[in-house]
């Protein structure tokens, strides 16, 4: 009885205790000292590892703040709230975070454009983009399978009428959607107020017009109207120089295809 059942049980209980004791000792002796400050800073960060701060994830950014004194306002998704917390922990003065939101530079809604072909493959933008640059008539526009929607952690981007649209109230500017877009249509712009060209077509005006009634036809009206020399047509597409733009909205009013939008 003892040898068959109790001895093995005792043996393994003993071994378990011994191993546990060993682990406990080793974990205290060889413990990696984690800085409490780093821990606290890390907890103040959102933890989505988007990389907007320029470091490879929140852990590294927290480390760099504590060890190298990197500025505390680099986390765009965390915004002012995170920056304030981190400044408090670090005991430095709070610096304002320039908050960003994503903008999708395509206005190719269902009523404005059409399809080249019916796509039946894997329903992702990346897959569809491999065939004739996407199934839409415009080679530059939103493909509309929502790779960006799947990437968003804040429920801030949705497919509306065939095109991805950002809800600026929910968007934190983390760029997770932008890196997914095979057409590179998503840009980060100033969250407070902004004027944007909602088109990315680099086709000639004639071709663009044929493909989509909301596309930039490179007529240069905006360029001529802008009092600050801030908008120029380059490569068949109006582009805004945000350093010069004062958001006066003059170009928004003259655009014949209404592809320049402003929000504030």
């Amino acid at each position, binding site marked *: 009885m003892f040898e068959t059942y109790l001895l093995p049980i005792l043996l393994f209980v003993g071994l378990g205790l011994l191993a546990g004791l060993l682990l406990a000792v080793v974990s205290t002796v060889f413990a990696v000292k984690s800085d409490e400050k780093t821990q606290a800073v890390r907890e103040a960060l959102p933890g989505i590892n988007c990389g907007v701060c320029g470091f490879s994830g929140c852990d590294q950014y927290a480390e760099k703040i504590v060890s190298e004194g990197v500025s505390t306002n680099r986390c765009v998704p965390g915004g002012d709230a995170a920056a304030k917390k981190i400044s408090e922990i670090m005991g430095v003065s709070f610096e304002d975070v320039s908050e960003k939101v994503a903008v999708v530079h395509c206005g190719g809604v269902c009523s404005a454009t059409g399809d080249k072909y019916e796509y039946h493959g*894997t329903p992702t933008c990346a897959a569809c983009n491999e065939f004739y640059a996407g199934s839409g008539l415009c*080679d530059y526009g939103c493909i509309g399978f929502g790779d960006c929607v799947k990437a968003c952690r804040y429920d801030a981007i949705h497919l509306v009428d065939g095109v991805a649209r950002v809800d600026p109230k929910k968007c934190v500017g983390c760029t997770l959607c932008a890196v997914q877009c095979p057409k590179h249509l998503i840009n980060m712009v100033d969250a407070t107020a902004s004027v944007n060209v909602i088109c990315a077509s680099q086709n000639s005006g004639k071709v663009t017009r044929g493909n989509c009634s909301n596309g930039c036809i490179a007529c240069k009206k905006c360029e001529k109207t802008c009092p600050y020399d801030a908008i120029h047509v380059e490569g068949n597409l109006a582009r805004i120089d945000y350093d010069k733009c004062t958001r006066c909205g003059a170009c928004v009013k003259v655009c014949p295809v209404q592809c320049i939008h402003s929000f504030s």
Partner: protein
Amino acid sequence: MSVSKSRRKLRGVFLRHDKHTQEMETVRLPMPAAVKLPMLQHMGKPCRPLVKKGDLVKVGQKIGDCDELFSVPVHASVSGEVAELQEYTAVGGAVTQAVVIRPDGEQAVSEEIAPPTVTDRESFLKAVRESGLAGMGGAGFPAHVKLGYKDVNRLDTLVINAAECEPYITSDYRECLEHTADVIEGIQAVKKWLRIDNAYIGVEDDKPAAIRALDEAAAGDSGIQVVKLHSKYPQGAEKVIIYTATGRVVEDGKLPADHGVLVMNVSSVAFLARYLKTGMPFISRRLTVDGPVVRKPQNVEVPLGTPIGEVLRFCDTDEEAVKMILMGGPMMGVCVYDPETPVIKNNNAVLAFDQKNAQVPKTTACIRCGKCVYVCPMNLMPAALEKAYDSKNAAALTAMSVNLCMNCGCCSYICPAKRNLAQKNQLAKAYLKEQKQK
């Protein structure tokens, strides 16, 4: 008798052959109303157009070229007037220019055309480039780049791909029968200038007529051997044919030439032989036109740049019923959405299907039956690769050698759940490439 049966086998699938056009002589297409010649008909850098609107061009005149090595020139396939330069979106999404020529019907041959003088390897490679030859089997790889492999002493074997393993397509088979002498001459030219000793012509064993013809033509040359391959898709895939014909295994990331082997399509070598004799560059090619809605399936000799709609009309296609047009075979061909799409250098077939055949089956969940693993000629695990790609696991994708996938489509074909496994593999390859660049 220099025919040998390959003992080596890789996995694959057995397909219906549907080679209705096998015994039909090639016919010539009447002159199309206009031809559109894209500046990118090959793998590599696009050409710059050398002509402008209103120019008069003659047959064989060079109309596009590029200074880059990884590119081949484009020649006019008809004589006539350049109507316009258009933007053209290739299947991969690259936007290049295309020269539209309105034929005058005279087919006056350009004065530039003269047989090239070939004296050594350099002049041979130069002639190959000037011929405008890009692999006729499907990928459109520039022939002069392939033949110009830097370490010429390493090359010892030439494999000629006449497997033609996809259903419907018979254009290479017709080349073997109609231009048997050219095939052998082309092989001998490549062997001579690149100092290669052995050549194998791989033909599937369901084409006895081609095997017999090639064997008889090659009888005088002990360095050419016809190898019978199993009639199992994908025998014509580069890595597969190298293994079955020579027993060599091309490693991941290596070129066949790194293992001493060059693989050329049978139509490519035959064209090369003709070019060396006449100097007429790559301006037309044979297409198999077939499919359930084509009433007169046949092989047609077509000037490059001809709209495929015109080719289909010539073969009496029921235009109302067409729901899907494929360029190439049903396994690896690409869908074409516009009948105005021009025929380019690497097209070997135009297939038209009706609603019934174009229908896409519904994709359901993976039942882990392992059929995809069983048919993969590269011994990959497509189901596992799909999971790894979906979770964007680059380490797992590399560990499972997704880069070995050549997109033959066996996994997608066999999958009872109709999952797009081959497509996922291509996406995974693109994803890995992107990750590496970061």
